[in-house]
C-alpha cells in the first residue's frame, strides 16, 4: 500500500493501463474491503464451529477450542453416505455433460447439416426457461420410468446442458479452420479431429465449465429433495436439513460445523487449484 503513492516504474512500463497513484489506492482498498465482506461469514462459521456453544456469539480470544461440534454434526445424520452420494452425483453429471456437450458442440460448430441453426436456437431457448417451472413434468417423467429415489433421477434432467453446449460451441468456433483442415489432410477422421484438435484447445473452457457444474450440483437442493426419499440416494444438501428444524430452536455451533464440513471439499479444491480456475475463467470468458 505504501508503494502505491509512489510511481512504480517497472510495473507501469510493462502495462500502460495498470492503475497508478490514487486510482491504485482506491482499487486496492475496494478490493480488500470486498474480500473482507466476503470472508466475514466464513470467518464467523469457523469461529462458531471450533468453539463451544456458549461462545457462539461472544468473541473471547481465550475461548477454549473444541472439535465437539464436528463430532455432533457428523453423528446427526449419515454424512459418510451423503458424501459418497454427492460425489457420485456430481461425477455422473459432469461426465455426461462433457461427453454430450462436446459431441453436440462439435456438430453445431463445424458440421454442416440440415436444420443446424434451428437446433441451435432451440438449445439456446432452454437457457431462458426457469428450471423450477419444469419440476412437476420432470418428476412425472421419472416416475413413469420408475427412477424416483435414485441418484440417476437427480442427474438425468441436467446431463444435456444447454449452457455447456453453447459454451463449447463458441470455443470450438474460435479454433482456426486451418488446424482442422491440416488434420484432415493428414487423414484424420472427424472424431479424431475432434479429439486431437478441438478438445485439447478447449481445455480452459472444460476446466471452467467443470467448476461451475460441480459447484452448482454440489449445492443444488430443491430438485434432489423432491425426487429422493431415502438415505441411499440423498445428497449432502438434503442431509444438512437435519439442522434446520426451527421448531426446536437453532444451534449455530453445530450448523456452522456441518456447513464447513460439507463445503470443505469445494473450498479445499478451490484453494489448491485457484490459479488454474482464475486463468481458465479469463480464457474462457465466463463472467
Amino acid at each position, binding site marked *: 500500500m505504501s508503494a502505491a503513492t509512489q510511481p512504480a516504474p517497472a510495473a507501469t512500463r510493462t502495462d500502460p493501463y495498470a492503475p497508478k497513484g490514487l486510482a491504485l489506492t482506491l482499487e486496492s482498498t475496494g478490493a480488500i474491503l470486498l474480500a473482507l465482506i466476503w470472508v466475514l461469514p466464513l470467518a464467523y462459521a469457523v469461529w462458531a464451529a471450533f468453539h463451544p456453544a*456458549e461462545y457462539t456469539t461472544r468473541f473471547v480470544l481465550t475461548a477454549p477450542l473444541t472439535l465437539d461440534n464436528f463430532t455432533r454434526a457428523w453423528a*446427526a*445424520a*449419515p454424512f459418510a453416505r451423503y458424501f459418497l452420494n454427492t460425489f457420485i452425483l456430481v461425477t455422473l453429471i459432469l461426465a455426461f455433460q462433457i461427453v454430450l456437450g462436446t459431441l453436440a458442440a462439435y456438430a453445431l460448430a463445424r458440421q454442416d447439416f440440415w436444420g443446424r441453426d434451428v437446433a441451435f436456437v432451440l438449445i439456446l431457448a*432452454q*437457457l431462458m*426457461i426457469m*428450471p423450477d417451472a*419444469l*419440476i*412437476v*413434468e*420432470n*418428476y*412425472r*417423467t*421419472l*416416475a*413413469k*420410468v*420408475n427412477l*424416483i*429415489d435414485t441418484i440417476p433421477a437427480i442427474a*438425468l*434432467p*441436467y*446431463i*444435456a*446442458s*444447454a*449452457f*455447456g453446449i453453447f459454451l463449447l460451441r463458441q470455443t470450438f468456433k474460435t479454433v482456426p479452420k486451418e488446424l482442422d483442415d491440416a488434420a484432415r489432410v493428414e487423414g484424420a477422421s472427424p472424431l479424431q479431429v475432434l479429439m486431437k484438435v478441438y478438445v485439447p484447445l478447449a481445455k480452459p473452457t472444460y476446466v471452467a465449465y467443470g467448476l*461451475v457444474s460441480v459447484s*452448482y450440483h454440489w449445492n443444488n437442493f*430443491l430438485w434432489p*429433495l*423432491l425426487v429422493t*426419499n*431415502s*438415505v441411499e440416494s*440423498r445428497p449432502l444438501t*438434503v*442431509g444438512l*436439513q*437435519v*439442522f*434446520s*428444524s*426451527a*421448531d*426446536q*430452536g*437453532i*444451534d*449455530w455451533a453445530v450448523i456452522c460445523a456441518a456447513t464447513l464440513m460439507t463445503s470443505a471439499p469445494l473450498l479445499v479444491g478451490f484453494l489448491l487449484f485457484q490459479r488454474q480456475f482464475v486463468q481458465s475463467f479469463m480464457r474462457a470468458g465466463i463472467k
Partner: protein
Amino acid sequence: MDRREFLGGTAALAGATALPGIARAQGATELSFFYPVAVGGPITKLIDAYAAGFEKENPSIKLKPIYAGTYQETIVKALTAHKSGTPPVLSVLLSTDMYTLIDEEAIVPFDDFIKTDEDKKWLSSFFPGFMENSQTGGKTWGIPFQRSTVVLYWNKELFKEAGLDPERPPKTWAEQLEFAQKLTKRDAAGNVTQWGIQIPSSGFPYWLFQGLSTQAGAILANPAGDKTDYANPGVVEALQYWVDLAQKHKVHPPGIVEWGTTPRDFFERKVAMMWTTTGNLTNVRANAKFPFGVAVLPAGKKPGSPTGGGNFYLSKKATKAEQEAAFKFVRWITTPERAAQWSAETGYVAVTPASYETEAMKKYVADFPQALVARDQLPSAVAELSTHENQRVTKALNDGLQAALTGTKTPQKAMEDAQAEAERILKAYR
C-alpha cells in the same frame, strides 16, 4: 443455469401403459408416508419404531416413512408428487394447509372411513381445540397428530433476582408488562444486558400474534376460511401492546426477534420470559441450566392461544385399499397409550384427553409437571389462522406485523393494509 428435459419424448410414448410403480409390492399393501422431519432427527427413530410395531401387528401392510424435512419442504414435495400422479398415501402436513390441499383436490375426508360406533367414538375423542383446524364444511379432512400451542416460559432464577415470586408467572397483560420491566437490566451506559420478555416475530409472526389477538377478544378469520378480520379494533389493540413492549416500555428487543434463536437467548439468560411453542419443551428441559417454569399465556380481556402443528391427511389419488390401510394406521397411532408415549418423548401435546389418563402419561407429568400446561390451555385455544390461499393471506398479515414492529407503519395503518390485501385475495372464494 442449464436444464433440460431429457426424457420427455421417451416418457410420452411409454406414458399410457406405465404404472405408478414405486408404491407397489407383491401381496402386501405398501404405504408411503411423508413425515415433516429431517433424516437423523430424534423423531425419526420414534416414527421408525411405530412403523415397525404397526407392521408386526398388521403383516399385510408395509409402511414406508419418508422423512421430508421441514413442513414447507414436505408440502412442496407432497404437492409435486400429487401433481405427477404418485403422491404419498399418508402425510403429516400443517393443519393450516387444509384449505390449500382441498383446493388442490389432493386429499379425501376421513368421514367415508368412519363406519362403526367405535369409529365415531374415536373421531370425537380428540380435543375440540385441535379439531377446529381439521374440519370444514361438516367434514373431517385431517386427524391431529403432531400438535402444539404457544406457552410462556420463564426463568425462575432471574425472577428471584428481580425480587419476584419465582413460582408465580404473570397472569394478565398488565402483570406481564410490570414483570418485564422489573426483569429488564441495563448496564451503566444504558445498554440492555437482559430483556424482560421476547415474543419471536421472524418467519411466522402471525402465529404468536394470534395469542395476543385472541386475548384481546378478536378472531382473525372465519371458520369457512374465506374472510379475515385483520382491521378489527381488538387486533389493532393487541398489536399496539406488542409494539409498546418494545418501543415505548423498552422491555422487549426492538425490531424483528428471531424465532430459531429465541430458545438460545433464554438459555443464555439474555431474556427472562419467552413465548414459544410447546414443541420446545424437551429442548428447553435438556438445555436450560436453571429451573424454569411453563405457564399459559397471560390474559388480556380473556385467556387465549392458537394451536399449531401437523395433521394426518389421506391422499385422494391413492387406491381404496391403500386409503383403508392408512386409516388403520392413523387409528392405531392415535390410541391413548401411543399418544401419551409420543407426547412424553417429543413434548408435543397429546391429542386426546384420554391419553392424559394413561399410566405412562401420569408417570411423565409427575416427573415433569410443566407438560400439563399445554393441556390446561387447550380449553381457551383457538384454531390457527388458516384460509384459502393460506400462504398469501397470512403473508399479508405477517408483512403488516413486521412493518409495525420495525416502526415503518403504525399498528392501525399496518392492519388496515393487511386487511385490504387479504380481502383482495379472498374475494374470489366467496
